[in-house]
């Protein structure tokens, strides 16, 4: 047991799913509900084993499907529980009905999305189409680059979700296959320090199902009756305020994490070798590692290339993205999913939207790669860099570059 929640930090070797599960142990949730789905299964297997071993002292609900998983957690959270689950792809789709309701109830739960491409074509491999499909549901969305970041971010996510100015559910996304099963060295923070960092769960002071505080939870609200419209608008606006607050709150949480544990992650967007760059590539999730390698290689060739990694995707860190892009003359954006609205990826859309709110006008090159488990290698990124350099010279592709089209 002590091995899992040590009194001092120590190194272990594990994959991203186990890292998330170990982060959950550190966060000491009251209720965890699980249902397995590829590529998330080993995560909930780990949680179940931790409960069986007495390492994780949470109520474990083995529900009959993701819809009930999240529903049970909603109930538990309304009764005062710190809660956690994880899902993926079709599981997220099945969870959608309670999922879309959670932010409006302002329930601060943490749910890992082990991202997977969406059916059909039938596939069981990584891709971010599942998470991107729910980007407008009101959940905070955070994407991780490596296994250590998964562990650290799942812990930090509880603090973000439960912050009184935020009170929103958080999805911590880690890429199926590449992070779920990718093994690396990870530093486990000391359990006692994490307890100090997180503090007591405060999840239902604003809305509760508790005989000591009887109230109607979520009665009909809105309509054209007296005060209905004002009431509904009031709730929606406060939800938006919670989202907006998440940017600063998450930045503060990262600063505190860095002070306590010595790892300083960029909370919103990370700028890598950007300060003197002519062009940048924009990445999200585990592809960032290969992207950084490609940037390093380009730098070795004398090309002034930098990288912008998106960590917080919802709310979209517009200011940080504008500040980063204002340093370069063109950017190549790599999406691991598609948008069916435009001929580009969703991250591409968000970057364009952010730019329109600023005086910065630079060419953007849209790239789509890594669908259904495909790898995005440093060679793929070399193509992105080359296309972006051409765009800086005025040669802007009219449609996205599909990185794995010939793989």
């Amino acid at each position, binding site marked *: 047991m002590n091995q899992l929640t040590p009194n001092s930090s120590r190194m272990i070797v594990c994959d991203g799913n186990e890292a998330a599960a170990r982060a959950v142990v550190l966060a000491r949730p009251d209720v965890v509900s699980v249902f397995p789905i590829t590529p998330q299964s080993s995560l909930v297997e780990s949680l179940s084993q931790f409960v069986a071993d007495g390492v994780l002292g949470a109520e474990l609900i083995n529900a009959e499907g993701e819809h009930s998983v999240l529903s049970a957690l909603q109930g538990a959270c*309304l009764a005062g529980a710190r809660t956690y689950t994880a899902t993926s792809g079709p599981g997220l789709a099945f969870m959608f009905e309670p999922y879309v309701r959670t932010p409006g109830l302002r329930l601060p739960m943490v749910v890992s999305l082990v991202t997977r491409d969406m059916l059909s074509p039938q596939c069981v491999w990584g891709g971010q189409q599942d998470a991107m499909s729910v980007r407008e549901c009101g959940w905070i969305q955070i994407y991780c680059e490596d296994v250590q970041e998964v562990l650290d971010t799942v812990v930090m996510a509880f603090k973000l979700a439960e912050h009184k100015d935020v009170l929103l559910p958080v999805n911590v996304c880690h890429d199926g296959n590449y992070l779920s099963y990718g093994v690396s060295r990870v530093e486990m923070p000391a359990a006692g320090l994490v307890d100090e960092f997180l503090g007591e769960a405060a999840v239902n002071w604003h809305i509760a199902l508790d005989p000591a505080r009887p109230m109607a939870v979520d009665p009909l609200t809105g309509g054209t009756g007296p005060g209905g419209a004002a009431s509904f608008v009031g709730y929606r606006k406060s939800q938006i305020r919670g989202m907006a607050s998440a940017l600063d709150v998450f930045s503060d949480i990262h600063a505190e994490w860095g002070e306590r544990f010595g790892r300083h992650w960029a909370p919103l967007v990370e700028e890598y070798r950007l300060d003197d760059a002519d062009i940048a590539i924009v990445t999200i999730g585990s592809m960032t590692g290969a992207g950084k390698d490609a940037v390093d290689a380009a730098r070795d060739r004398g090309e002034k290339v930098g990288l912008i990694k998106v960590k917080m995707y919802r709310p979209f860190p517009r200011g940080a993205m504008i500040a980063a892009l204002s340093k370069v003359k063109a950017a190549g954006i790599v999406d691991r999913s598609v948008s069916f609205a435009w001929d580009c990826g969703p991250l591409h859309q968000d970057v364009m939207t952010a730019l329109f709110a600023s005086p910065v006008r630079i060419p953007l090159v849209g790239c789509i790669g890594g669908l259904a488990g495909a790898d995005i290698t440093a060679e793929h990124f070399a193509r992105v860099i080359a296309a972006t350099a051409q765009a800086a010279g005025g040669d802007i592709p009219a449609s996205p570059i599909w990185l794995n089209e010939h793989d």
Partner: protein
Amino acid sequence: MAAQDTIRFVPERCDGCGDCMKACSKAKGSASRISVVAGVGQGWEMALCRQCGDPKCVANCPAGALDKHGGTGIVGWSAELCVDCHLCTLGCAYGGIAFDPTAGHVQKCDMCDGAPACVLACGKGALQHLSAAARLHETHADKEDMFVPGLSACQGCNSELLIRHTMRRIGRESIVAAPPGCIPGMGTVGYNGQTGSKVPIFHPLLTNTAAMLGGIKRQYERKGQDVTVVALAGDGGAVDVGFQSLSGAAERGERVLFICVDNEGYMNTGMQASGSTTFGSWTSTTPVGEIGRGKSTDGKYLPQLMMGHGCAYVATASTAFLDDYHAKLEKALAASRAGFAYLHVHAPCPTGWRFPAAMTTEVCRRQVESNFVTLWEFTPADGLRFTRGVERPRPVADYVRMIGKYKHLAPADLERIQASVDRRVETLQGFRRRPAAE
């Protein structure tokens, strides 16, 4: 219709004087139909008809001479039909029916038209004439109503009656889930910041009531706090889209009381058919026209499926038999301390089924008298037990003809309904635990 009455015997007050027997004998002009007998230890016992809910004398009678009256609850005897076989006296464990040599046939208590002579004669208070209303008053009158006045249920709806009775009994240490349907529709969860209830209450989704309640209960168990979590759900949220979460929670044995108030359709939103809607029913999505003749399949019978989950307690109930409901509610609450408890209460809907609002309770009673609705309870240990006999039911047509949603039905349709009612009773009988001796 009178509430169902009984005579209560209080042994501590009985001195064995026999005044009751004399009064009975005098009133009936025959041998006394009650008998003071020596108790097992000190004191006295009373051989007296209990007017049982599931009378064994009626079940034993091969001639149809004994019958429990649906309205008064009195087990009556018919001189015309009796063949003097005395099998009824063997069935009764209370000595409530016995051969009377002076009359030359069996005799039993008939409650003296509501003023039992024995009770009037007892000066010690050892016999008390107790109506169902009096019993409910004794146990529930001092309990607080948990809903606001002025809930806006349709006229004649028995759901409001049911939820008020239920929550008076359960009290404040509770959390109520009212998934979308008539119960929140009548205002129990409130509107724009106002609540309709004194206890914590919420709208789950139509689909996830049992799962949410399970999550709530787990957290209170974790905190060591005894809170009753209860669903007041409709049939749609139980048999249709809510079925998966209900099934999962039942399988996990979550300590939840799930009450399904079955009005056989989505009545709150305009009377669309649900999985519980019965064969032949007109609804707004199984309309009657040149071709359509109402619902073309039988309803899904959820209580039987819940037995299949091995729930700690499963029972059916009708608001025409409130005594029976309250007894089952007690057992369900006790069972929900250890496992999943499921109550299925039938709720004929005057608005959607098209019968006069004043007839609801009579419709409920006719459902039961015709076996269209059977009253039973189930535990894994004891199997199924009918709490009201299913022998010699009225023809189901007597019930069907009261209801507007069936008015288009042809004789062949009625035969089909009768056959499916008979089949269901037969199926349910198979869930009874057979005595080891057999």
